[in-house]
């Protein structure tokens, strides 16, 4: 079945860029905007980057782990590969951008609001949020992102191996599920801090 699925894959795409290059324009704009916002200590801007980035990051993690994951498991192998081909290059741009937006703006916002100080009444919650982010970073950087990149490289081979792609996608979806579950903890902590 795996051999038959491999035959159904499209011709090699090694000449194409790994990521959609047009996507680098909004990513660059967001990074420049983020640096400018931090440098000018613009409170509304920091709030905007943190809330928008965090909301989208949380929603995307939950969506990937608990919606796309189960759907993908039920698809035939060629359909999974086709979905992967279209989804993963975009994810490689979207996720790091959202994470950078959320964490950089969030840390500066916490500093601005005095939440980083040990004298802050809910300092323990702030430290707990850092611990949750640390676990998410470990999972994302060691499992999610490498799987994402490895799938893209496998898909560019003349004869992609569906078993490797399936294994990496399984790892990607499970890791997204773990970070999705951690995001629920983040929601609890953030709403505690905001109340």
């Amino acid at each position: 079945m795996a051999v038959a699925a491999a035959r159904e894959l499209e011709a090699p795409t090694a000449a194409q860029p790994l990521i959609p290059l047009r996507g680098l324009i909004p990513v660059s704009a967001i990074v420049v905007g983020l640096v400018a916002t931090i440098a000018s200590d613009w409170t509304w801007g920091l709030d905007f980057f943190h809330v928008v980035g965090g909301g989208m990051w949380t929603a995307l993690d939950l969506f990937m782990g608990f919606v796309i994951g189960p759907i993908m498991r039920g698809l035939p192998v060629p359909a999974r590969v086709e979905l992967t081909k279209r989804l993963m290059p975009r994810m490689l741009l979207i996720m790091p951008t959202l994470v950078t937006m959320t964490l950089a703006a969030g840390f500066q916002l916490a500093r601005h609001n005095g939440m980083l100080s040990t004298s802050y009444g809910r300092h323990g919650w702030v430290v707990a949020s850092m611990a949750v982010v640390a676990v998410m970073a470990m999972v994302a950087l060691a499992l999610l992102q490498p799987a994402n990149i490895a799938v893209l490289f496998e898909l560019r081979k003349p004869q992609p191996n569906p078993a490797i792609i399936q294994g990496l996608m399984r790892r990607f979806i499970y890791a997204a599920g773990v970070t999705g579950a951690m995001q629920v903890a983040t929601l609890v902590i953030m709403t505690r801090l905001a109340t």
Partner: protein
Amino acid sequence: MSGQREPRVTELGMLSIGLVAAGVIYLAAYLPRRAPLAPAMILLACAAGVLATNALLLARRPGFAWWRFRQVAGWMLLVYLVVAGMLEFTFLYDHTHGAVLVLMTLLLAVFTLNVPLLSAWTVARFENG
């Protein structure tokens, strides 16, 4: 892939990043006071040691697709140098200085080297050497 048992690069990488994160959280948890530096130094040494062990285990692997490893690691390093540059900027912007700045910078360096290693390993292990 050969039948040889693969080194635990991903697990060791996670451990090293976890130790870096623990060091940063420890230092940040004391703000605005200065944390006693010894625990952070121990965490940094452990993180760097695990990273070095990981690189050594990888270097001893025969038939590894180093050409692909170098390609992926090079680009990933470029991307994460930009990220690390932004983080270093925020350290300096927040008036971090002295021994704490040195520690934070070294922790950041270990983090920045771990990420390309993990991605490049995951890609290259599925290539023919």
